[in-house]
């Protein structure tokens, strides 16, 4: 483990995030389109929702539950996307890798859309989870789409000494274009049902409103599954930073690490997309911010990133609701507005590094 200043900073960051999470969650629960709720009712409603105690009157209980699932989903999605991004950045040894830049969330989106169209029998629905097969099939197809995207990118970017950043980015751009094209094709084919086109378009904006307990379960499963991969890849990713041959000479099973990282990041990204649609930049920005504070060790990065991701998305989501009132923005739009400039800034700042391409 690292010693000295970075370790202290890491600890401080961890503590800071843990301390920030509950009040943010509370803030998120308190604010909503029908105004602020007081703590007592919130407490009662949440306890009842989680299985114990007396519920509030019908409408109030429902509203508390809506907010509870929304808050949990937001935290889960933020954590999952950040973890996915951290794994991809470690695997590709490049800080510009992320599930949205590399087309992973796009692949999950396409998989989910195809599944929705199939399962919905052509009816235009965003994931309407009613306990039917849809709640299993859609995340599964999202996972297949995400895994296919990452595998394709790994294949093309090559596995050698240094992963070429231009190849990585170009592959991601190409993949995202192809996916957008296929989605446009689906829209064009379904033009008569232009409601379908509208639903497909909505996918690209994402949504965190009106989530149900099923959504929370899906994201929890995805996140936990990805977290179980972490102990098997954390140190290995550190050792991979000096090159694949070098890592192999130390005894690291590089192929296994690659497969595990792909599986883990795809699971996390797919669960996030299946539950909330496409939300960009969380996977790019959050691991980068964590790295700035606690250094590049993956043992801390892979654990702090999900925590930071949850805090980050909760903060941004609550912030835009507090600022914009009822006219809220879809989370995908909101993150593009925040993350886009950040990404540009990062590109400029890394230009010195990138000059050596």
């Amino acid at each position, binding site marked *: *483990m690292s010693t000295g200043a970075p370790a202290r900073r890491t600890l401080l960051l961890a503590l800071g995030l843990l301390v920030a999470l509950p009040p943010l969650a509370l803030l998120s629960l308190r604010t909503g389109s029908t105004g602020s709720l007081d703590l007592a009712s919130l407490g009662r409603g949440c306890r009842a929702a989680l299985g114990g105690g007396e519920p509030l009157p019908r409408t109030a209980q429902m509203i508390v539950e809506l907010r509870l699932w929304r808050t949990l989903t937001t935290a889960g999605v933020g954590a999952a996307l950040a973890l996915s991004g951290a794994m991809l950045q470690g695997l590709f040894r490049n800080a510009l890798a992320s599930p949205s830049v590399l087309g992973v969330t796009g692949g999950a989106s396409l998989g989910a859309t195809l599944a929705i169209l199939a399962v919905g029998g052509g009816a235009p629905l965003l994931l309407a989870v009613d306990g039917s097969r849809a709640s299993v099939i859609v995340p599964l197809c999202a996972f297949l789409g995400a895994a296919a995207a990452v595998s394709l990118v790994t294949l093309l970017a090559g596995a050698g000494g240094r992963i070429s950043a231009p190849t990585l980015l170009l592959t991601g751009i190409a993949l995202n274009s192809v996916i957008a094209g296929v989605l446009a094709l689906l829209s064009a084919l379904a033009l008569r049902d232009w409601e379908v086109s509208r639903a497909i378009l909505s996918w690209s904006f994402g949504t965190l409103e009106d989530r149900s307990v099923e959504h929370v379960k899906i994201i929890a499963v995805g996140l936990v599954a990805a977290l179980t991969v972490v102990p098997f890849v954390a140190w290995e990713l550190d050792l991979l930073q000096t090159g694949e041959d070098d890592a192999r000479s130390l*005894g690291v099973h590089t192929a296994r690490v690659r497969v595990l990282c792909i599986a883990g990041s795809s699971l996390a990204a797919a669960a996030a997309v299946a539950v909330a649609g496409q939300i960009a930049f969380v996977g790019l920005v959050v691991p980068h911010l964590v790295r700035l504070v606690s250094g590049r060790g993956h043992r801390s990065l892979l654990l702090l990133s999900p925590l930071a991701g949850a805090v980050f998305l909760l903060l941004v989501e609550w912030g835009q609701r507090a600022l914009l009132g009822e006219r809220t923005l879809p989370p995908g739009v909101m993150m593009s507005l925040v993350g886009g400039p950040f990404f540009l800034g990062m590109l400029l700042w890394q230009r010195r590094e990138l000059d050596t391409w």
Partner: protein
Amino acid sequence: MVSSLAGESLVFDYPGPVRAVDDVSVALRPGELVVVLGPNGSGKSTLLRVLAGLLAPARGTVSCDGRPLASLGLRERARRIAIVPQSLAALPETSVSSFVTGGRYARISPWRGPQARDARAVGYALEAAGVGGLEARRMTDLSGGQRQRVLVARALAQEAEVLLVDEPTASLDLEHQVRVFELLARLADHERSVLVVTHDVNLASQFADRVLLLAGGRLVAGGAPDEVLRREVLEPVYGPHLHFGRMDPPDGRPFVIPWLRA
């Protein structure tokens, strides 16, 4: 006596096909320092990577303590063979001790994690490589010579019986070149065998127990430095512009310098 590492009739082709290693046999015995010499493109580094198990030979086998290398798992291999690479794909931003601890990967159980034994091994390795006081420094803050020694320390931390070293002096100044080779010669003791790939003929003369000369992927000569570093052996490989000499007694070893004939 079983060789600690042996390669039998090795052949390796790069896509092309370009034959980089052509029917080369090598046997390393414990306690010896073997130097592989040859001009650029002679296949020295490729041979090293085949011996390390990083490249699979098209023909021939590599065996470690009599067992085929291919039958050993990656961790098992890393416990027996350690490589000091010429350069790294990227210089990590960790501390020196963190970096050298990476060498313990193959010996640390994933369930129990690092033990006191591992910290001790890292300490010994740093001392043996002569970088004992640099634990807390960042890898990016080291000089070329220090970096080379840290790479050696990491290889030592693996506690492997075979050390394969790839061009250790490529970017070092004169003082450090000798120092590194002196270290490697010291490391080749009862339990350890060291194979060094280098283009520096004179360092080979000074420190090697045995010298192997590669040209065009083939092994053209092998033996004590005295036997290999002669005009009739080197001229066909390196060309005519060589001047041979001999150090004063009691050293008496041969040296070769490139010198344009008038």
